[in-house]
């Protein structure tokens, strides 16, 4: 009975943290209408929480004095607001025309095989999510992807292998400290 009750209970607004509020308050000083910071507020929450849950969305809507539905309309409009949990690292893989000409499909297959995930999926260990992204504006160095705030260019299967091997080493080193 508890299971049924909890699965049908409606989400309620999460109280935003002091840090989130502080950053949102700063954004509000930059616009004449506080509803204008909806996207910034969602990005702030996502930076701290990893993604935007229903509870977070309702918390932000309440804080900005707007309806949760209106804010969800904004949240779901933008490619980079995540309304589902994502991995600790989100790989934004450019699949637009210049990267396609330069063979990005094969690189994407290589990443998918290596990590065992397709677009929209997250690895079982919660480490990586793979997403397609429209043209990253680095077309003279295609194929490209964005990960950890860094653009990785002129991708080849070997480069992908080196990149993930290096990351695994770094992770081991930081965990053994």
């Amino acid at each position, binding site marked *: 009975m508890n299971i049924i009750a909890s699965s049908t209970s409606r989400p309620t607004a999460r109280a935003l943290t002091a840090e989130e509020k502080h950053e949102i308050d700063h954004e509000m000083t*930059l*616009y*004449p*209408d506080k*509803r*204008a*910071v*909806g*996207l*910034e507020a*969602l*990005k702030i929450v996502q930076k701290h929480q990893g993604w935007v849950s229903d509870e977070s969305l309702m918390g932000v809507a309440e804080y900005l004095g707007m309806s949760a539905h209106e804010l969800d*309309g*904004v949240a779901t*409009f*933008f*490619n*980079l*607001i995540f309304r589902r949990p994502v991995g600790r690292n989100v790989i*934004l893989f450019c*699949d*637009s*025309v*210049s990267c*396609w*000409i*330069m063979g990005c499909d094969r690189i994407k297959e290589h990443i998918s095989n290596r990590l065992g995930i397709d677009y929209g999926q997250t690895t079982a260990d919660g480490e990586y999510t793979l997403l397609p*992204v*429209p*043209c*990253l*504006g*680095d*077309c*003279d*160095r*295609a194929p490209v992807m*964005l990960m950890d*705030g860094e*653009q990785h260019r002129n991708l080849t299967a070997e480069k992908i292998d080196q990149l993930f091997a290096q990351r695994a080493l770094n992770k081991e080193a930081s965990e053994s400290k």
Partner: protein
Amino acid sequence: MTDRPLTRNIDMSRAPFDIGQYRAAGGYGSVEKMLKTMAPGDVLDLVKNSGLKGRGGAGFPTGLKWSFVPMGDNAPKTKYLVVNADEMEPGTFKDRLLMEGDPHLLLEGMMIAAYTIQANTAYIFLRGEYLRAEKLLQNAIAEAHNKGLLGKNIQGSGFDLEIILHTSAGRYICGEETALLNALEGKRANPRAKPPFPQVSGLWGKPTIVNNVETLCNLPGIVNYGIEWFKGLGLGADAGTKLCGVSGRVKNPGCWELPLGTPIRELLEDKAGGMCDGYALRAFLPGGGSTDFLLPQHLDLTLDYDVIGKAGSRLATGTMIVLDDRTCPVGMVGNLMKFFSHESCGWCTPCRDGLPWIDEIFQRFEKGGGLESDMQVLTDHLEYLGPGRTFCALAPGAMAPLGSALRHFRDDFHDHIHGGGCPWQR
């Protein structure tokens, strides 16, 4: 004087100039000159007469765009300048170069535009994925503030200006200026009906100018060196220089500042080094994903708005995407159709329903299962999604590569339909 006003400070092997280095190289000189010696109307006349056209894609004369903003004592006190830095056109990588290579140049250009229309607040609408540009611009804004080039009563002129950096979260439609304004107001980025035009009723209903990054970066040179100099930079009918890029299977892909009127062949062969060994040029999109294919026979045309227009395409963003003879043209167009279908905002029916339909047809072409009747459906869409049928230019832009591909690559489509899928995959 310089013949490369946009990139003269840019060297991507080092960090961009900080404000000290930028000023030592003559930076912000145009702002000092303008505030001391020019009224807003003087700058407007200068820019109008310079022949500067918008570098974002549409090529609309910048001075004419500004001239619709209400001026004088009866004009609204609050006006806005907005920079369209939402660079997301497939195959386009020019504004990134300017923002990462010389961020102060953009701020200097913004000051000139804001002063001309007497806007005291300017927003930079930057695409969310441009993280390095975000950091560099934020830093440049802070530097300009510290030196009294932004804020209240700039250099004792009585002119106030604040520049605010807004970062988006990935949506191509935000590059459409009225959709951009909705996004900046915190709404879904659907385009608005025009009229009213943003110059009269834009951001929060106030007079607003939206200009592309590269357009604004042209302004300091025009104020510093004048109209004759600017016109003299161009080799043909158009004034000034243009950032021109080449991507695809060429030896040396990249982005260069060239005089408008430069032959396309010079861009492709001298700058980009020609095709990679073993590849031949089949066709190219001259200015990003929303332009019509041109063919090798067009290589001797010059990079001029009207010249490219007469050949049936557009100079648009000036960043060329090259199709080689070992890449499937149907697959390339299918990739573009998938992009446009995904990025349609869904506001108006022809675009929302038409683009996914086209995308579905291209997926069948790829796998096998294409029908001869699909060709008529695609041809019909050129009209249904063409100019005048939709709220904004997204769908008509998508029809440009599609329509020209149907003309130039008829045999390739035929092979897909009658050969059971993409022949390049078999």
